[in-house]
């Protein structure tokens, strides 16, 4: 038993120093020097101010903006900290809805959002895994073009062209799904309206 105590203590101590402190800090330093944008959260700036991360979705509600997916994130209730209240796109506390496919809460939520429409793209009425999904499907974006164009008094084809500009096809045409970057599309909308 005792013969194993020394290697156990030494190995744990050395690993903590090398793998737990030195290596992560070395990567922080190296990344800061070589890839500060990517390692720092891929932040986007507008007129010198940080307006968000290109990887993290935001809660858009205005008619002139494309809306992201419903988000199930919450925040502590200011009145009672043991409870939570809905706080869409709370990037300090990621969370999915964790509702089962047969959940009555899921069905009633989707029913309200679907509002009797048909052929709704699934991503438009379902919450994402992280609650922070930065993307929507091209079909979802296409359904919002009319609303956004009207609110901004822009021509619909011009708005659709911007949607296409911020649509990423599957990687190599094979991997993953086509997706529209909502935050950068909305920044482009603001630029087009100016």
């Amino acid at each position, binding site marked *: 038993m005792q013969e194993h105590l020394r290697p156990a203590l030494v190995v744990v101590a050395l690993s903590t120093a090398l793998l737990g402190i030195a290596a992560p800090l070395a990567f922080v330093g190296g990344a800061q020097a070589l890839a500060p944008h990517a390692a720092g959260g891929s932040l986007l700036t507008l007129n010198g101010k940080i307006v*968000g991360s290109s990887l993290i979705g935001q809660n858009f509600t205005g008619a002139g903006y494309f809306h992201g997916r419903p988000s199930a994130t919450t925040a502590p209730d200011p009145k009672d900290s043991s409870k939570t209240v809905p706080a869409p*796109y709370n*990037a300090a506390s990621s969370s*999915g809805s964790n509702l089962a*496919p*047969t959940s*009555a809460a899921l069905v009633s939520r989707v029913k309200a959002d679907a509002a009797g429409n048909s052929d709704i793209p699934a991503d438009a009425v379902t919450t994402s895994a992280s609650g922070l999904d930065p993307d929507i499907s091209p079909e979802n974006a296409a359904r919002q073009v009319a609303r956004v164009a009207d609110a901004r008094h822009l021509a619909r084809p011009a708005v659709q062209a911007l949607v296409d500009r911020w649509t990423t096809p599957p*990687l190599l045409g094979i*991997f993953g799904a086509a997706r529209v970057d909502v935050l950068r599309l909305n920044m482009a909308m*603001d630029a087009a309206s100016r």
Partner: protein
Amino acid sequence: MSILGWVQIVLVLALVLLAAVPLGRFIARVLGGERTFLSPMLGPVERVTFRLAGIDPTRSMGWRGYTVALLMLSAVHFLLLYAVLRAQYYLPFNPQGFTGMSPRLAFNTAVSFVTNTNWQAYAGETTLSNGAQMFGLTVHNFLSAAAGIAAAAAVSRAFRRVRGDGLGNFWADLVRITLYVLLPLAIVVTILLIALGVPQTMLGSIDVTTLEGAKQTLAIGPVAFQEAIKLLGTNGGGFFNVNSAHPFENPGVLSDIIENWSLLVIPFAMPVMFGCIAGRRRDGAALLTTMMALLLVFTGCIYAAETAGNPLLHALGVSDVMGNMEGKEVRFGQALNALFAASTTATSTGAVIAMHDSLMPLGGLVTLLLMQLGEVVPGGVGSGLYSMLVFALLAVFVAGLMVGRTPEYLGKKVQAREIKLAMLAVLILPLLILGGTAISLCTASGLGSLANAGPHGLSEMLYAWTSATANNGSAFGGLSADTPLLDYGLGIAMLFGRFAFLVPVLAIAGSLAAKPTVPPSAGTFPTDGPLFVGLLAGVILILGGLQFLPALSLGPLAEHFAMLAGKTF
């Protein structure tokens, strides 16, 4: 399902195989103490570590010595992590100012990382400081993975033709795997992930003002390095609450492919390593074939279930073209989602890119079943191989019963002692999974933890006990897991799931190592051909299926049929 989806799945798995074969051979050489291309750089570090720790790599251990060493490491590391989690407020790198974990949550979390489970009863970004993530969790990700691979190496050595060599030196194995295998791979993957946008910074959070003028706080930290080893070591404890679904952990399709590759490559390298160490490459290949075939089948099942879409939502006007999107991100697509869900539960990883609680009933069933089969297709790093070898012994035992002959595996006679020990190990799973679920659901506390009603509630609790016992760590995340019942109960399940399985398996190794190798005769059942692959797959499926089918019928199967009947809960 689409052809293009299958192309994605097959290509990613091909990339895994392409790397796993040379990697398995490399690991065998490292564990044999041979010189490799990394020796000029890492050799001095290895020698200094051996000298400081008093390790003599040439001193081979018996199974008891090997077991005691492994348990000693786990005990020491458990105590350190428990202390770190409790005292994080006083430790460096805590920009968030988080206070220490409660005793029961710290117990649960420390057990979970020592056992390579990485069950998250906590939400990373709202509970743990950057420091606790770094020198608490990240270090465990390395050492618990290395301990698993070491145990697999010890079991492999039992099948060598030379007798009396012992099972190897645990400490030398541990250090060599960490230095020559895990660290270099982690460095490469970290660099790739940072380049793709996974953050690596000492900040705790960044405040931004959104386009619409609202305040948004982005939780951030040294994510990339931990992300790399979390997947390579099949650990799975995410930096953030939603794990690899978080855009900062997994920003795009390429990062997802790298992460999925990372979590499969070492588990698939294990049977190759086994073949090299035991000197039976074809038998190693048979194990690998069984693993890959079952993984493909189960991935296909999840893919089919998820692309079918939810009929309850379809009735409300939702298109089925994208499949079931509740709890999924847009960027990955259903094929990569299915592959990740299958990979993470077929190994002991437990990282997720989709919320398993919101999978279709049959998709969720497959993830449950993959863990209940004992995580052998391909299983966790190391643990997958030694669990698979237990099934291989049971398979030749079954074949031996059919022809009335003493079974042998790789020239080692499999007798009563080995089979008793194998059953002892295998029976841990149903005892803790079914027993734990049953007891929890009889208590008010257990019922209060459930987020969903009806059969899905049963699935939630079943998933928790399955995940803990199988040392997986993924969850049906709606379950409120930070309660006294589940913190302590699942903690104990994780401990037994790891060590009550591992100790009998090492005992089997000790027993087999002491036996002479019998030369193959006309009556020897060949264990390197398609017949054995079929038999092994059958034993795994029947043993797992029969034990858990009743519980799965009451949970996901009942939910599936209720859903088809239009019922909600």
